[in-house]
């Protein structure tokens, strides 16, 4: 059962140099910012980071990258971060670009005990290099291996004290998948409620995948692209 931690800083006792870390989020949306920023305050280094994006300069994953705490990154998209681009071009960070659906499925497979799977995505492209290819029922596919992490950082909207989770809108994204694929899963939430307050039908992720919960200390409510319409249009 999940334990409630007093602070994001306390959660860092579980993260050691050289570990593989998953961080939820799509860009800055649904990124477990308190946990990531607490990690940026530590001396932990040589982290292999699995996250959909490199995040933005000096915020979220961008802080870990700027601190040179990351040696290898698995991501589907690494735009919007000039420091990451610089480290990538100069060879200071190893980046494996993974198609977004393949990334999600590799993580899902990891959490579900499926060591590998065949997918048509990426066949005949750079992504297929070095991977087994097979034609299955007329469809050209490549073999993709599951991803697992020593530690997963997850952001949810609400948790009950057992660790059952509810996500908010598109901040869900990779978070529930990564929660299943971490040997240790640490979840930061905006609100912790009593057991029984969440309707069993509304729970997105059952507590069985969650090891630690922490109430996030501060939320920046950051938006990458502020797009809006005027009231008159």
């Amino acid at each position, binding site marked *: 059962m999940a334990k409630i931690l007093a602070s994001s800083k306390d959660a860092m006792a579980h993260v050691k140099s050289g570990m593989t870390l998953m961080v939820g989020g799509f860009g800055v949306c649904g990124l477990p910012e308190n946990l990531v920023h607490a990690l940026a305050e530590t001396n932990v280094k040589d982290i292999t980071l699995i996250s959909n994006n490199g995040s933005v300069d000096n915020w979220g994953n961008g802080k870990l990258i700027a601190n040179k705490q990351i040696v290898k990154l698995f991501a589907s998209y690494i735009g919007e971060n000039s420091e990451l681009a610089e480290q990538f071009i100069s060879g200071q960070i190893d980046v494996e670009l993974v198609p977004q659906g393949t*990334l999600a499925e590799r993580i899902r497979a990891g959490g579900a005990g499926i060591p590998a799977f065949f997918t048509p995505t990426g066949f005949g*492209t750079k992504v297929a290099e070095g991977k087994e290819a097979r034609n299955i029922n007329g469809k050209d596919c490549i073999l993709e291996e599951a991803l697992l992490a020593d530690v997963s950082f997850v952001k949810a909207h609400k948790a009950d004290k057992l660790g059952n989770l509810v996500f*908010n809108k598109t901040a869900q994204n990779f978070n529930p998948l990564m929660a299943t694929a971490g040997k240790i899963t640490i979840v930061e939430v905006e609100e912790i409620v009593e057991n029984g307050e969440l309707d069993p039908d509304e729970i997105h992720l059952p507590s069985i995948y969650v090891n630690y919960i922490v109430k996030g200390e501060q939320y920046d409510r950051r938006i990458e692209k502020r*797009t809006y319409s005027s009231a008159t249009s």
Partner: protein
Amino acid sequence: MTGVSKKERIAQRLAKELQDGYYVNLGIGIPTLVANYIPDGMDIVLQSENGLLGIGPYPLEKDMDPDLINAGKETISTLPGSVFFNSAESFAMIRGGHVDASFLGAMEVSENGDIANYMIPGKMVKGMGGAMDLVAGSENVIVAMMHTSRDGKSKVLKECSLPLTGLKCVKKIVSDMGVMEVTPNGLVLLETAEGFTIDDVVNATEAKITVSENCLVGTY
């Protein structure tokens, strides 16, 4: 052509590929503009790869929500009937062929339907995001692109020179110059855009291209 940018015209023409009841994924760039040209009375549900079916219009400034964005990371809204889900579910829809059409941008397309749109070695490496899954999963991949580069070189090629996003997956190309279908015999020109003759399009195309008997001139 007056008053409307080339990109808007491509988006307007792309919108004609929609059919009532379609679930559609719109890529970043020109395809996103298609949302502005969905014909009145047509019910279309837009899929956003980050975990939303039923993308609504941009919200009012006061309603912008950091937890509610599209794949381009822009703040958006929902509509009655919208639904959220995780990234694996989103790509099950995409890879599983449940999305009726996928519109996306391209840097290059070849005559056999290969597409390159995610990197320029040594210059631009941003990543493929969901594009490789979209082209692998959809039976109806339609590309929106400028026909030529800024220095006038054709981007509709015999073979792509850039790293591929997918092989033999593009069904149709809508460029600023014309509409082309990808067939087993190469490209077939179906329409030209306003201001371009059939010869203009053929001459600007490096790929093998034949002209449909029913090719229409200046349709958009």
